[in-house]
């Protein structure tokens, strides 16, 4: 039976320090590699007679705008059906040059999944047979799942980032009123509400 620790050892044997950041959130072995290495790693996982990660469960993009130089992540979920074990493999790319090798040669399932990732995150899969938008209209000129595009209209303050614990623009208590900000006015008013 294949164990996470063993998979990790095999990967380190083969790729040395190029595979890194091994973690096991909720029991699933997760690691990353440089983006140029993605096909080498996927091929090794696929072909190795012991590892046999031959089923691509899913592939998706994630946008981390704060990580300079590695803003876009591509996450592969792979499954070894014989031993029934899953792993998660990540690569990161610069958003200014989001070129990544396609996995369509290895998995036919990757075709539409990569088109979806291109459609929503703008990842350019080099060598993909038909890289065009799949769910959005062809005329769209931006990549809508990137974090800079808010989903709600800007007048809705109840859906502001601030309401979800992530900073935000609404700034409750800092709006200007006739008496200064609400916080200042309440202070002057001996703590009683002013509105």
């Amino acid at each position, binding site marked *: 039976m294949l164990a996470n620790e063993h998979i990790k050892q095999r990967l380190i044997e083969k790729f040395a320090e190029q595979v890194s950041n091994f973690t096991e959130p909720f029991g699933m072995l997760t690691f990353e590699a440089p983006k140029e290495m993605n096909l080498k790693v996927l091929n090794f996982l696929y072909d190795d007679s012991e590892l046999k990660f031959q*089923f691509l469960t*899913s592939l998706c993009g*994630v946008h981390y705008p704060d990580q300079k130089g590695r803003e876009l992540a591509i996450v592969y*979920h792979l499954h070894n059906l014989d031993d029934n074990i899953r792993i998660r493999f990540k690569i990161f790319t610069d958003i200014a040059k989001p070129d990544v090798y396609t996995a369509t040669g290895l998995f036919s399932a990757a075709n539409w999944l990569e088109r979806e990732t291109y459609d929503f995150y703008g990842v350019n899969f080099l060598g993909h047979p038909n890289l065009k938008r799949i*769910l959005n209209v062809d005329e769209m000129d931006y990549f809508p799942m990137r974090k800079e595009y808010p989903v709600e209209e800007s007048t809705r303050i109840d859906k502001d980032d601030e309401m*979800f614990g992530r900073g935000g623009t609404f700034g409750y208590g800092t709006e200007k009123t006739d008496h200064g900000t609400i916080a200042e006015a309440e202070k002057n008013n001996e703590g009683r509400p002013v509105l």
Partner: protein
Amino acid sequence: MPTTDQHIRLPEGSIERTTTRLNLGPTHPATHGVFQNILEMDGEKIVSAEQTIGYVHRAIEKLAERRPLYQITPLTDRLNYCSSPINNIGWHTTCEKLLRIKVPKRVDYLRIILMELARIADHLICNSIVGVDAGAYTGFLYLMQYRELIYEIWEQVCGARLTTNIGRIGGFERNFNNIAFEKLEKFLKEYPPVLKEFENLFVRNRIFMDRTIGVGPISAERALNYGFTGPNLRAAGVDYDVRVHTPYCSYEDFDFKIPVGTTGDCYDRFLVREEEQWQSLSIIEQAYEKVQEFKGAEAEVYHADVPEYYLPSKEDVYTKMEALIWHFKIIMGEIDMPAGEVYHSVEGGNGELGYYLISDGGRAPYRLQIRRPCFIYYQAYEELVRGSLLSDAIIVLSSLNLIAGEMDG
């Protein structure tokens, strides 16, 4: 070049063009949903096909990035709307995994009853539609009554029929009432003979066999490479089922078989879905027995004790300070969830329905990706229909059980 002495005079230029382009969809009665196939036809043979999807894309993954967990449940209804309870409960179990909530056994069993009913409702529609597309309308009308009965059971449990929003994180919003159990007993008693009769109509029917055997086959290797899961993969001979491989909701307590086919053609897909309905019936019976074994206070348990995520009863909200606070915090979405990333999948009507949830410690998911089985296996459609007849292409379409809502996300 057309010669002048031929009997039929063809219009100029028509002889050079040998294939015809045919649009199947986006709004065509045979597609059972809004998606398009552009077929390149040579006479009645399909030379190539290209699919266009996205007509009902609603940006569920993007919307989920600005919703607290409980507000995402109604979005999942809209994936595979023939079996929404599986989507809902799949989402709840994903959240429970991230939040490390342990739900009581009785909740697990009640959930299994609902999910297996949903599986029956899903397969029932798919198989009877295969019949309709092969020209046999009767079975469809006959089985439809029992989908209605399933919907009535859901209605008793959650108040809705199609987009169910069933259950809550940690359990159910209220206990099952007696009418729900009565209707369940009625279903368990009346459905098996009806299903048997439906099978008598189809399984050894010469016309049906001729229309489906050898139509749209796929080998196990190709199916795996294309990411097939669920009945479509099992029809190709691979016994992969999430309920067995990574059990959730105490599926390990149940005894059931995984039917597999051999050729992966429409007939095998039909038979696999039929057999799965029998297995689901058996699981429901076992689960119902287990539910009845709970006595006294145990029989009243319908949710886990997680005040941070489970809305308190209205009675408590009006009389107890603490319940009022939790109510307010939950409704306003003021509860931070733990940071982490989790992948959790359930066996949906069409295969492995997976939720990949990344939390950064905020109040809504940082990223939610939904593995939608339809979207992944519909890629294989071109390979399945190339070289076959137009009428076969339509049966392949319905026997794959393509649900536009699930495909487009």
